[in-house]
């Protein structure tokens, strides 16, 4: 495991990792079936929540 190899690996894999992560996040965020869940969560905070459900 030489230094040059690790540097090369960091640079290439780091970039790949960034792209993969960004793609994954965007897919998750804009997946149509997730939308209602997100809207519900955003609204839920402002609703009444004065006691636990159990």
């Amino acid at each position: 495991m030489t230094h040059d190899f690790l540097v090369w690996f960091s640079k290439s894999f780091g970039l790949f990792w960034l792209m993969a992560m960004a793609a994954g996040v965007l897919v998750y965020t804009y997946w149509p079936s997730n939308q209602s869940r997100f809207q519900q969560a955003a609204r839920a905070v402002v609703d009444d929540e004065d006691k636990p459900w159990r």
Partner: protein
Amino acid sequence: MFGFHYRLERHALRFVIAVILVAGIGGFVEIAPLFTISETVEAAPDMRLYTPLEVAGRNIYMREGCYACHSQMIRTLRDDVERYGPYSLAVESKYDHPMLWGSKRTGPDLARIGGKYSDEWQVAHLQDPRAVVPESKMPSYAFLGRTPLKTSDLGLHLKALRKVGVPYTGEMVANAPADAYGQAAPDSPYAAGVAQRYGEATQVRAFMGRQGDPTEMDALVAYLQVLGRLTDVAKAQQAQAAE
């Protein structure tokens, strides 16, 4: 009921794993190459180790938080180099556990302060900074001159440093308290062993101008006077570049 809960918890754990993957791998990939960096760092075969007295002085430097106002890292910028000396090399702090590069210069950089001023100046300045530099913002450290240095456990300190990778020998560890005494008492029988173990360039002097049991002031001045002088590789590199 159990299945329902299981699903919920799996959801949270999936999230936890995602955070670890995203943040952890990112951090690891960036830091990993630094652990093989020794392959690319300049070699410094003449590099000396801190003596026990200098280790004690370094610990006082940390204890008093000197690093909060003084950096020990000369950048590769022209004005940094002209003001403080040849820029710092990675190898010069390879035995610094931890490094004291600092992040703020309320006072000047100290990476190459060693030898720039006399011992008398350093002691006077630490005792009452404004007597020497009227505009100074530094607090007085007169109490260091009144506090005897604890040397009895320096062997343990060297041992701990050896565990993290500083090549102290068994002889150095065994003689640590005596070497700390001898370095500040050149006329004592303990003085000869210091240069023998740590190299001829080691500064064996009465830093406060009097011999006997060393004070914390002795230790701190010994440390300040060795800063930037453990190896000549930076100066040699600068001279080479100038040619």
